[in-house]
Each structure stands twice: as structure tokens, then as C-alpha cells.
């Protein structure tokens, strides 16, 4: 057991180191220059460009050799300092993330969890049930195959403009300032609903179809046939099938939760909802090394953490893994 986790930990640390190094390198390989992008976004008739360029390069620590920038990067990372965003200068990256990511968490976590739970239940239920498979499964296919952008725009247009019962922009009414009142909380939920539902629909469709296919596969497996021939009830067989089929779904769920820090770009654009996805896109377009690094750092941590959790969860939910490990350890 100890050896198992020790080895895992080592692999995780190594992966982290490599991934963060690549994370540091990639924005620097892109053509372009963050300081010059930042300065040219102003239209001041500036004769001071050269001086300002040097000044800001120094502010961002970009005036030292690349190897030194790399060392400085690790040094400040260990101090918990992710640098200052150039796109949202002079906001520290940590603050950009702290302000934007919660919006994504509020959207994505419930959408993914509810979608996962309902999708799996429904998929398992629908598999091999003729009439459901013929009616609702195609709906799932349509939902997952629909370009999400289009679905979102359709929802916003129909419920937001034609029927007009939902707002089309913002995290809460533009006429309100945050306060602890029912009105404000209601407004937050009202604005949250459409983006949430659009994500939920797509999540639900994806998980349901995945589960349906997995269950069918499991029902065809030898152990199911064997159970059947022993005269076990359908319910029992299905339960066994579900337990096996849910394993890859758990992996998928954990990975999805791991990349939440990447945000929900399309949702944010379509519903004009705040979040990190849009900012990350802007950061990439503006060569904002620090914001890109910061976002991906958390994505890396998220994915590694998700994997780690999966490793542990498998021990719990999959007796085969557990037994294999016990055997190995003893």
C-alpha cells in the first residue's frame, strides 16, 4: 500500500514538474510579445513607446535571459506568486482567478454532477428498453451532437428574447448591487438558470448515451449470460452490469471536474456570463504569459488531483483493483 502510493506520488510529482515546465514554455513559443501587445492596446499618441516598453518589460521580469526567467518562475511559484496579468494589468493572476473561477464552479459543478447522475441513471434505464431506446435515446444523440454554441444561442434567443422570461446577459441584474436580499439572490438564480440548463442538457445527453452503450456491452458479457442462465432476476443482472459500466464513467467525471479551471468558454460568450474561459481566450490572444500559466497550472493540478482521486476511488468501488493491490502488498 505504502509502496503503491509512494510510487504514484513520485509519478505525480514528475508529471507536475514536466507539465508545469511545458506550461511555462508554450506561451513563450507563440509568436508575439505580451508587453508590446499591452502597450499597443492604447491609442495614446505616444512618443514614449520605447521607454515604456523597457519599463514594463522590467516590471514583468522579461528583461532577463530566458533561463533566468524560468528559475524566477519556479521561485515565485513556491512563494505562491503567479505574477501579474498583462491583459488585465495590473491585477495579480491569483486575483483574476479568484474573481472569475467561482462563476464557472457555480455553473459547471452542478451541471456536471447533475448531468452525470441523471445521465447515468437514465442511460442505464434506457438501455435495452425498446420504446425508450427508440424515443429518448435519439434525443440524447441530438443533444450531444448539437453544436453547443447553436443550442445556447437558440435557448437565449427563444427564452431570452422571444418569450422574454430569462435575461440574456450578466451574472445578476445590471440594476442591482450585491446585497443579502431575496431580490438579489433571486436575480442571481434567474441569470444562472439558462447557462446552467444549457450545460446540463449537453452533459446529460453525453453521459446517458455513454452509459447506455456501456450497459449494452456489459449485458452481452459472459458473466451476464451466466447469471441469466442461472435464472437470476433481470434487476440483479442489471445491477451487476451497472457496477461495471460505471467505472469508466467515474474516470470521465473526475477528469471533467479536473479541468473546471479552464472555464466554460462558449457558455460565457453566448450568455455573456462572467468566468475564466473568456479571460483565458483573451489571455492567449494577448500572449499574457502569466495568466495563461496561472490557468494551466490549476488545470494541471486539477487533472492530477482528479487522477489521484480516481486511483483511490477505484480501490473502493472496484474489488478487482483492491484485491490486486492487497495481493501485491502482502
Amino acid at each position: 500500500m505504502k509502496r503503491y502510493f509512494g510510487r504514484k506520488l513520485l509519478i505525480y510529482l514528475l508529471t507536475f514538474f514536466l507539465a508545469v515546465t511545458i506550461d511555462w514554455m508554450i506561451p513563450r513559443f507563440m509568436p508575439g510579445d505580451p508587453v508590446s501587445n499591452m502597450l499597443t492596446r492604447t491609442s495614446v499618441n505616444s512618443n514614449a513607446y520605447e521607454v515604456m516598453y523597457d519599463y514594463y518589460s522590467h516590471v514583468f521580469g522579461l528583461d532577463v535571459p530566458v533561463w533566468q526567467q524560468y528559475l524566477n518562475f519556479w521561485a515565485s511559484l513556491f512563494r505562491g506568486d503567479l505574477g501579474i496579468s498583462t491583459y488585465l494589468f495590473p491585477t495579480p493572476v491569483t486575483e483574476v482567478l479568484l474573481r472569475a473561477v467561482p462563476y464557472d464552479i457555480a455553473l459547471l459543478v452542478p451541471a456536471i454532477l447533475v448531468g452525470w447522475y441523471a445521465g447515468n441513471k437514465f442511460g442505464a434505464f434506457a438501455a435495452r428498453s425498446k420504446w425508450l431506446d427508440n424515443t429518448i435515446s435519439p434525443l440524447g444523440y441530438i443533444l450531444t451532437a448539437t453544436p453547443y454554441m447553436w443550442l445556447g444561442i437558440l435557448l437565449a434567443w427563444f427564452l431570452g428574447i422571444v418569450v422574454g422570461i430569462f435575461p440574456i446577459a450578466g451574472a445578476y441584474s445590471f440594476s442591482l448591487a450585491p446585497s443579502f436580499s431575496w431580490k438579489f439572490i433571486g436575480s442571481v438564480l434567474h441569470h444562472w438558470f439558462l447557462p446552467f440548463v444549457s450545460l446540463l442538457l449537453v452533459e446529460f445527453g453525453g453521459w446517458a448515451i455513454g452509459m447506455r452503450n456501456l450497459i449494452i456491452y456489459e449485458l452481452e458479457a459472459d458473466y451476464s449470460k451466466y447469471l441469466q442462465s442461472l435464472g437470476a432476476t433481470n434487476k440483479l443482472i442489471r445491477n451487476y452490469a451497472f457496477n461495471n459500466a460505471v467505472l469508466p464513467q467515474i474516470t470521465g467525471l473526475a477528469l471533467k471536474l479536473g479541468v473546471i479551471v479552464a472555464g466554460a468558454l462558449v457558455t460565457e460568450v453566448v450568455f455573456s456570463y462572467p468566468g475564466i474561459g473568456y479571460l483565458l481566450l483573451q489571455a492567449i490572444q494577448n500572449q499574457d504569459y502569466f495568466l495563461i500559466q496561472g490557468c494551466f497550472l490549476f488545470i494541471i493540478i486539477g487533472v492530477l488531483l482528479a487522477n489521484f482521486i480516481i486511483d483511490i476511488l477505484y480501490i473502493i468501488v472496484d474489488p478487482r483493483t483492491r484485491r490486486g493491490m492487497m495481493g501485491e502488498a502482502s
Partner: protein
Amino acid sequence: MKRLSVVLSILVVVSMLFAACTTAPPEEPAVEEPAVEEPVEEPVEEPMEEPMEEPAADIPTEYPRNETLYVSGAAWGPASTWNPFQPGSLANTTGTIGYVYEFLYAFDPQTGELTPWLAEDGAWTDDFTFEVTLREGLTWSDGEALTAEDVAFTFELGNQYEALWFSPMWRYMESATAVSDTVVQFTFTDDPLYQEFSNNLYNIPIVPEHIWADKSEEDITVGANEEPVGSGAYMYLTNAEDRNVWVRNDAWWGQDVFGTPAPKYIVDIRTSSNSVALGMVLKGELDLSNNFLPGVAELAEKGYVSTYFEGPPYMLSANTAVLFLNTTQQPMDDAGFRKALAFAIDVPSIVNIAYAQLVAASNPTGLLPSLSDFSDQAVVDELGYSFDTEQAKQLLADAGYVDLDGDGFVEAPDGSTIELQVTCPNGWTDWMAAIDIIASSAQEAGINIQSSYPDYGAWNTELQGGTFNMTLNNWAAMSNTPWTLYNLLFRHPIQDQMQSGNFGRYDSQELFDLVDALARVPADDIEGMQAITSQIQELMLTEVPMIPLWYNGMWSQWSESTWTGWPDETSATPTLPTTWSGYWQLGGLLTLINLEPVAVE
């Protein structure tokens, strides 16, 4: 033992999950509610935090619709700085300069005149001394008086810190001193750049000395300056990821001079896409949208939205889109080729198709309509160009460009093939459509040009490093002087990196001398300026170092459901209907003052 460790690891995981849940409460993060207990523990170590928490009492929780103006189109990201000296990110807090911080002068692009703002009057007492008299009774929003000391202090900052954009002014300025409480005297060396100085008079935001004197260099040059204290008509109220809110300064000194702006609150909304802004205007949730909305012409015709002009181009012109040609490369180094290209480009299609009539074709001189006084019609009539494919073909043939291999495209006089690319940043859809038309119309005339859309960063690198063939650029802001445009077009000396102009590296000492001479003409000497600008235009139209194509519009469409009194072509004294950063002192603020609430039935 093993069992125990399994249980333990499960516990760890579960507690981590719980931690994740509790540290990340959903819903509202960006704007910490002005909770009661917060001020107690807050002020320890967080100078960068949201300046939201202290005056919990008088922060309104709701902005009544009939007192609030909703605008969009300036901010494209969350607000990050309120430092009026900071370039770049200020667009996301449009109004920091204009609402909060004010200038000595304003500029009226419709009449071409500098109008006194904080200044009451200003005059050159001799060629090298400029004296400004401030108005009486100017105050900062914290109640302190705004005096000549503040003005002198502000200009002096540029002398102290060269990282401030206006510091180059001190190459020709000697001093800025407060002679009395209301009089500031600027003295100059014997070589003042009058044009730049006049431009700076309405672009340098005056800051309060009693607050800024204690700031460190870092705070002044790169600090975020949260809780800005200015002298202007509005004050900072709050901000969140998708909005900035400003509240009227009811003690504004200018109410007696200019009037009181009608909206008590201004909510500047960041929309993530233009179509969302359009939807909001149509729903009446947004009063003024300064987003570029393709197809708005049709909506204006049907009366869904209002625009400045009733017919094409619907929008005022804001800046000139110029096709820069890299004159260090063949065949763009040949004036004959450049001129032929100028005739080959189908500008009418750019206007009518790429922009659906929302822009106007540029005068060949590139000067905005507001600077038409400086465009020499005689020169334009004689040397100007317009779209004419046949003429382009003729000019190409005359200059020795003929199709040798029969592929439909001309070869250079030395027989080498011509394959060129015209670029603009990816995602700038209107420009992408425009360069497609540039490429296809040039191909019509026999010049092999393809369009290409690199990412912004890559485009910017090519632009400044001079590795492009031809590309679009519009970095000369609307201005009181044609020098602003020429400073972009003919920036010199030519260096490895051309960061703020003359990207095509057109090298002509004659032109450079003329631009330098123009910079030294006093800003009120219109005839002196005209004499030089017509020489510049003559050279420009003969040599065609770059090709001005069309005027980008000051995108602006509004709904009159809550506010009326918007400026349009019929207004007696039209102002600019825009909220873009840098336009408040060009009449944007006067627009707010002229607004009237729609009476509620």
C-alpha cells in the same frame, strides 16, 4: 493495518472534497458583499482588494431604471485599473479619464476647436510661454480645492517618471509652475512641438496633488489606483466581472458651467459578444451600445435603434483604416506599383459589402472629415485615386508589370513572380472581410494578393518587425491636429522595430522634414499648418507610401425608450454619442449632459 490506511485515505479524500466545496461558495465572488463584519478584519494586508467594503451605509443596492444609463461597447474585460496614466487596460474602465479625472481643455471634433474645461482661458504670452487660468471654484470630489498647484504637479510627474506616456513632452518643456492659485505657467525651450502640446492639453488628466504626492513611483506608474478621487462629473461606485458602476458627483463644479448630467448612475456593461449587446438594445435593457453590430443599418431603417445619421454611413467616423505597404520589399518599393494598387482596391465593395454601409470611404489623404480643413482639395483632384480596375491595369503595364507566364497575374519588371499577402488580426471579422475584398479586387487587376489572418500577437510582431507584405492599421486616434495622423504614417527615424507608426518603413527625408515642421507650427496657425499639410499630401498622393481606405465608424446605436436627447445630424450642437475611452473629452460627456429622461406616463 491495511484496512486502516484505506479508511484513512478515504477520509483524506472526503475532507478534501468538503474543503473544495466550502472554500468555493458558488454564486457571487467578485463583489464581496458589504458584510457587517468585514471592515473589522479587512485592512490588514490587502491593498489590492476590491474597494467595496467601507461605506456600507450609502451604497445603493438598486439603481432605479429612470435614473440609470446602461451602456456597453467600451469594456472588453473586467476592470483592472483606475490609474489615469496607465495605457492599455483603461478601456475596461472607460470613464476613469473623463468621468473622474478631467483635463485643462476639451476638444470639439465637429468645430475643430479646443474648448476650455478646467481652464477658463489660456494664451501664449510669448512664443515660449503658455499661461493657463483655471476656473474659480474647482473642487475634487473629496472636497479639497483644485488649484494651479495640482496642474503643475501633474505635468511635473511626466518630468519625474519617464514611464508616463507624456514624459517626452519634457524634451521641449522647461517648467510647469503655479504662479498663483489659478494661474499655471508653462515655459518651453526654443523648440517646442506646439501640435503635440495642444493635443496634450486635452489628454493629460489632472490628478490631485494632496493624494498623489505621497504615492511611490510604482504606484504612480503601474498602480491600480483603486478608489480614484477626481474632479469630474461622476465618481466610482462599484465594479464586478461584467460591469462598472459610476455615480453622479452632485457637488461637481461643472454643473453651473456645463449643466448637470441627467443619469444619476451609469452602468457600463461588458458583453462577451456584440450580438448580446444587440439583443439587449432591442429589449431596451441597454440604452447606448458602442459595439460594432453588422447589419445595424437595417435595424436603423426599421426604427428599432437610432443612429447618428439617418442614412449611410449611419455612424460618425472615428479613425482611418490605412493599408500599410512594406516599402522595403519588392514590388512595394516601387511607387508605380503602389499607385496601381491604390486604383485596384475595391473600396466601394468594402463599404457596401464588408460593412453593409456602416462606414464611409476615406479621402485619399486619410484625414478624417473632422480635419477636412487640412485636406487640400486641389491636390486630391489632381493626384487622388479611386477604384478603377482598368486604370490599375494600365498603370501596372506602364510601370512594366506584365503577365509573362499567362497565369492571369502580373510579374515584376525583372520577371520575378509576385505573390503577396495582405493581413489583419484573426477574429476582427469586419477587417477580415475587408482584406478579402482587397485581395480579390487586386487579383481582378492582375496582382496576386492573398488574404491571411494571423493571431493578434503574431500580427503585431510582423507589423512592428516589418516582415509583413501589406497590412491594415488604424492607430491614429481622432485628434485636433493632422499631425497625429502623420505622426503615425511617417514616424521616424526608421528603426529595426517600428512600434508606433510607419510600419511599412517608408523612407523619405523630405516627408519627415515636413512632418517635423508641422509639429512645430503653433496650433492656432491654421494657414501655416495648411501650407505644410498640402505639401505632405502632394508627396503622399504622388508616392502612395500607404493607402488610406475607409473611416472606421464610431459605432453607436441607442434606444430611446428611457433616455432621449441623443446627438444626431440634426442637433444644433452635435456631440459624440460614444462611451469609448479617450472620447469623453471630445464631447462624450456633453452627450450625457444633454440627455433627458423619458417622462413616465
